[in-house]
Structure formats: C-alpha cells, structure tokens
C-alpha cells in the first residue's frame, strides 16, 4: 500500500481505524498508479455515506453529490467529456436503497463508468440501521427482531439488467481488489465492482474474519457465460465467490449518443446559427 502518492490529499482522514474504506481507497490509488493515470485524468463522483468522505482524501477531479445519485451525475459527466476516466464511488444504502433505480438503468445503458460499491451491509454514518444488503435476521439499531427482508443481490441485479462488467472484491485483500479495479476501469462500458467492506464499528456479524472464512476466488470461470455468471452471483453464505463474474463487449452509451463519437463534447464551440431552424417556422 502506497503511503504517500500523488492521489493522496493533505486532508485528515476521519474513517474509523480498521474501516474497510481504507482498503478500497488504497486499491483505487494502486490501480490508478498501475494504469499510469494522473489525477487530472480521473473524475470521481460520490454518493453520501461513509464512503463519500473519500472525496476529501482521493486526489482526482471530484464531485460529491446527494445520496444515491452518483450514477446520473457520472453519466452526464462522461457524456460531456468522454476522455475522463469516470468513477462512481458509492455505498450500499446509497446506491441500492435510494439509488437502486439508477443502477438498473446505468446497467442497461452501458456508459463507460466504473461503479465501486462500498458494501458494508449497513447504514453506518447514521450509526447502524440495516441496508438493502444486510443479511436476513441481522439485528441492528432499527431491527430488534432481526431484518425481515431478503438481502438485495447487487451482482445478480446488475447482470439481469445488462451490466457489461460485473465483479466482486474484498476490502481486506488490496492486491486482488487492485487487479479487479484495473480490469474494471479498462473495461469499455458499465462496470460494477461490489466490494465487501467490513464495518468495524457497527457490523459485528460480517467481520473481516467472517468474510475470510467464506471467500474464495473464481477460477476457471467463463466470464462470457451469462447464465453461469448469474448462477455464481447467487452464491452467498457458506461460500462467497470473488473475481470477475461477467464481462461482455457492447457499444457504450456515449458511442451511440454523442453527435461525434470521437470528439469531446465539452470542447465544441458554443456558437451555432439558427437561421435554418427559424426558416422552418415560416
């Protein structure tokens, strides 16, 4: 893990000691360094939650929006400037609760964005209510009898909705998460990386050791096989697979939507004559 690097700001970090966010932050910086990227080539868009504090620590162009809405912000920015590496750095409550609809539609549209889901299975910034990914039965501040609902499966949802790159990493394994992030950023299209992120302060169920007993890396897995990917995405409990579940090549949103797919829209001149348009109203 790089201690001092060009992707680090001078801001004091307020995450709890041992928080999974440190691992994700380190893996992101490692991935950017490995890819030879500079901070001014990256636009990181954040939701609201513990993960969102990263805007103060990760040195790239950045935008912390409102809760759940990072993906539409990121999509607009990617359309404006296709040369940017656009990262949507989001949380599980943020993206799957309030922002669930946007995940479905970003998956369908396939903008060239990497969505890094900090999945700690809890609303931690509000001190511990269940998030959409909390395990059934989990006792939290607002579920004294345990969570009644089935957990949300972000990987299965993304695959079913048409995401072209779907992967899972673990905040406790920075080298492997770095590798997955490099693949995700290099992927041309919408990439969802679900990151298992232990919350040391409030989630006493899904801890580092709980995950370490269960996680394994997908090997000899055919990531082009959508049915297999879907089947693997449903695996949760005794065994939890990590790695790239699904990947396909298909046209991105920008390639189809932009008036000139090779030009940066934000660099085009503003002045345009409307003389011909006016004539149509005669």
């Amino acid at each position: 893990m790089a201690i001092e690097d060009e992707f680090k700001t001078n801001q004091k970090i307020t995450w709890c000691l041992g928080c999974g966010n440190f691992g994700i932050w380190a893996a992101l910086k490692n991935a950017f360094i490995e890819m030879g990227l500079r901070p001014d080539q990256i636009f990181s868009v954040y939701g609201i939650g513990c993960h969102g504090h990263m805007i103060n620590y990760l040195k790239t162009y950045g935008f912390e929006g409102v809760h759940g809405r990072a993906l539409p912000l990121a999509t607009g920015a990617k359309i404006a400037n296709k040369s940017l590496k656009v990262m949507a750095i989001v949380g599980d409550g943020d993206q799957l609760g309030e922002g669930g609809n946007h995940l479905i539609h970003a998956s369908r549209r396939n903008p060239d964005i990497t969505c890094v889901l900090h999945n700690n299975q809890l609303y931690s910034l509000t001190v511990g209510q269940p998030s959409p990914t909390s395990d059934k039965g989990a006792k939290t501040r607002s579920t004294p009898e345990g969570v009644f609902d089935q957990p949300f499966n972000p990987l299965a949802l993304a695959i079913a909705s048409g995401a072209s790159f779907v992967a899972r990493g673990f905040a406790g394994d920075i080298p492997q998460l770095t590798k997955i992030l490099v693949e995700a950023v290099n992927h041309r299209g919408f990439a969802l990386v679900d990151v298992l992120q232990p919350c040391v302060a409030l989630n006493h169920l899904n801890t580092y050791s709980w995950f370490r007993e269960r996680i394994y890396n997908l090997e000899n897995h055919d990531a082009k096989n959508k049915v297999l990917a879907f089947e693997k995405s449903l695996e949760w409990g005794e065994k939890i697979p990590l790695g790239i579940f699904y990947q396909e090549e298909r046209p991105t949103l920008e390639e189809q939507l932009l008036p000139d797919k090779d030009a940066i829209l934000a660099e085009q001149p503003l002045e345009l004559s409307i003389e011909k348009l006016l004539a149509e109203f005669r």
Partner: protein
Amino acid sequence: MNDFIFKIAGEAGQGIASAGLILSKTALRSGHFVFASSEYPSLIRGGHNVFVARIAEEAIHSLRSDVDLLIALNQNAVDLHGKELSPGAVVILNSDKAVDFGFPSGVNIFSIPLIKLAQENGGQELMMNNVALGATIFLLGADFEILTSAIHDIFSSAKPEVIDLNIKVARAGFDFAKENFTESQRSGSLKAKKAAKKILMSGNDAICLAAVAAGCKFFAAYPMTPINSMISYLSAQAKKLGMVYFQPEDEIAGINSAIGASSAGLRSMVATSGGGFSLMTEAFGLAGMAEVPLVIVEGQRPGPSTGLPTWSGQGDLRFVLHASQDDFPRIILAPGDQEECFWQTIEAFNLADKYQTPVVILVDKFLCESQKSVVAFDESKVKINQGLRLSKEDQKKDYLRYQITESGISPRPVIGRPGQTFIFNSDEHDQAGFSEESSDNRKAMMEKRMRKLTTLQKEMPQPQVYGFPEATTGLISWGSTKGAVLEAQKTLADQGVETRFLHLNYLNPFPAEAVESFLRNSQQILMIEQNIAGQAAGLIREKTGIKIENLLLNYDGRPIMPEEIVKRIETLVKIK
C-alpha cells in the same frame, strides 16, 4: 372580419390540431398575425379536442372569448361551442355528424357533408378536417395555393401520396363551397396581403431555439406535459445540432445528469412540470451548493398532484422560490410571451454560467404550447457570456475553486484539463472544496454564495411598463398573463380608460424598488395571476410591504381572457 377567432372542435384523433395549425400557417403566409392554442384532455383518443386561433391584420397578444368562425366536426362541438358564437358568426357544420339545431339567430350555417366528400375523393373519414379547411379557405377568400403549401409543411413527414390526397380532399371542400355558396357569402378576411415576414411558434419552440443558439449541448427531460414538444423537437435534430438529448429514468436522474454534464463543462438544461420539479428539488439545491450552472424549464400546469395535466396555471411560483432546503442563490425568470421565451432563455444560460447557479425559466402550459406569430429573432443580437473562467495556465497553478470574492463569484476551473484538480462538494466546504464544518467557514461560505444575488440585483434589467406612463390605474401581472393584459389595455384605451401595466418577468432576485414605486404612484391597482392564493401578490407584499387589495385570480386551468380584465377595471374605475 379583420380580427377574428377561429375554432375547430371535434373528437381527439380527428386531426384537430393539425387542421388548426394548417389554417394558422395559411393565415401567417397570407400576411396576417396569428395567436393559436389547443385544448385537449389527457387522452389519446375519444376526448373533446379544440384548436382555437385568433387571426388579425394587426399585432395581437392573446385570444378572446367569442368565436367568429367555428368548424364543428361533430355534435359535441355544436353543443359545447354554439353558445360562444359572436353575432353574425360563421359555422362550418359537418352534416355527416352534427345537426343544424339550436344555434343563436344571426349565425350563418354552412352545412357540408365533410366525411362523404372526403370518401368520394378517395380519402378516409379522418380527412374530413381538410375538406373543412378547403371550404373555409373559400369562404375567407384565401389563396388555395397557400393552403397547399401549409398542408405540405405540416405533413412533411408523410408519404407524398398521402400529402396529395389531403390536398385533393381540401380542393373538394373548396369546390363544394364554390358551387353551393354565393360570392356574397365570402368575407375576404384571409386575402393575401403584403406584410413583414413572420414566424409562428410556441413558447416551447422559442425556448428550444434559444437553447440551441446559446450553445446548450445537453438536454435531459423525462416526458411530461407541457414540455413534450421540446423533447420531440430537440431529440429529432440533436445529432445534427451537435448536442445530446438524454432521456433519464426519472426527473431525479434528469437533473443529476444535467448537473454532471454541466460540472464537466457543458451548457445543460432540463425541462419538466411541477410534479417532475418536485422530484428535482434535492438536486436543485445541490446545483446551488456545488455552484454548478444549470437551466431548468418549469412548465406549470394546475396541481396539486396530478391536477389538470393538460391545462394551464401559475400555481408553482412559491414552489420554485422556496424549493429545496435552506437558502442558496436561485434566479427565476418568467417570460411573458414567445419573444421573451427566446431572449430570456439566452439570458438564462448566460446568468447560469456567470453566477454558477441554477436558473429557472417559469412558464406554463398556455405559453409552452400556444403559437404566436412573431418577427423572426435577430440572431446577431445573441451574445454568449460564459462568465469568469480560470485560464488553462492558471489551472496549472494553485487556485481555490470556491474562492471568496466581493461579488461572490469564484473564477471557474474546468474538469478534465491538465493541471490541478478540484472538487465539487454538496457538504459545506472550504474555499478549496474540502468538507469543513467550522462556524467561521460556514458563515463565510453562506455569505459568499448569497452575495451572488446582490451582485446580480445591481445589473438586472428593470421590469417593463406598458401603456400610458402617467395613468393612475395600474395593472400588474407576471409570466404568460402578459398578452391578455396588453389586449385588455387596448380595449380600455378605446373606451377612454388609460392604464399602465407593469409586467414581472424577473421574479428572483425581485425588482422591489421598481415595483414599490409603481405601486406608490398608482391610485388603484389590479393584480392579475392564475393561482388561488395570489402568490405573486404575496411576494410583492413581502418585498415592498404593500398589500394589493384588488386581485383577479383565475385558477380554472383556462387562460385568462382580456374581457375578464376589462370587466374588473371597468368596475374599479366606476367605483372611484
């Protein structure tokens, strides 16, 4: 009849709007002024549809209540609109669907078997509207060739044989009228005359054209009446115009995507109605907090909730003034007609950039969808001003994204440039953009942002006063009621009643001094607006301390008519 109201009414799906538009274009191309509007229920087929146009030899600003020429395609049209006819009005009656019964005396009925004529000439029943147009053209003494050109343009996306067939049935209507009616029954109201070239467009059209001229490159809108025609217009030619239309999954995604596009350097716009704006409110504040330029078109329709989805009102003024938590600088413009829609949209993009904040263009269904003949906009007067931007060189050095300045405006860097990065932050932040909660910083940043409105207040245009500047009877309105008030002033002047009229098209920052002096120098004041609470009257009281006693409030979803204003003023003046 050198100033008449034409109405065509029938069932939804009978081509009411296209027939109305064809006649309007024919009038326009014959050198006349036109003001046109359509009324329809929130249905695709089966409801009652109406297209109404006022056609005149002199400039006009609104509709009137009386109907001088009615094309009644079915019995409903007779039953609903028979009573609106003026003395001596002309009715073209579809004798295949309606009976000549119950019209007031003095009305001239021309019964024509519209469906039979359409079918005899190889057309379908649906083409009865064009048969009626042909007969109308004969009766009004217009040039059939001009009608032909209008049909060509309105049906430009149809196959040539379909266009020809429409023209053929129109000819049949014309010939039928020629054979069955006498020359003395022709009015000559639509005779071609020499006049300055004009264009006919809706408020939505004017906003779209201005957006294109202003360099808007990103337009996001979730379908909703009354802004749908903006979507069809811009999406059809987006690629040709070098811009993007993005259809979001909801209005929340719409405004957030536009903020994202704007943050990365695009002039961006969203359009919606009150319900969609309800969903946008959180991100409205985000644009204010993160200081991202954004243009929001809010086409009002009567609420609350779904309300009257296809009708008009001005009930969202307080909503846009106060939407989203806490205070941030918001600019609210309320154009009064098609010309103001164009010029204030250009201005909206410049203000959004200059003050790095959201600008709302508050219009309504009536203005969005009504068509008015205007002199083509002078493009050479379009000026693009992107405000204070950080140079490429300066972005390579240290700078502060949210630098505290006297004007409140911080030089704007650009995302994606090689150089020092910066962040937009929805959390309270320091001058660099980093989250910061200290008391001193909070006060300084709130004051910096709000100072932008004070800066703008110093340079914003003053509201315009129309009519007799020395008159003691004052009228005040805002937004699309402008046209009806101008027409009322004309009528009143003819009766010897002099009035002056202050039209508000800048609602925030509010031109308090100008309004206060107008109020203090008038003996009686009538405020006209289209909501039940008198929202603008309340705003005036808040900003000037003056309570306006006489309010003409209209909230039935229908546009206010000049006659209603005239009546109120007559009462007021007589009381005095």
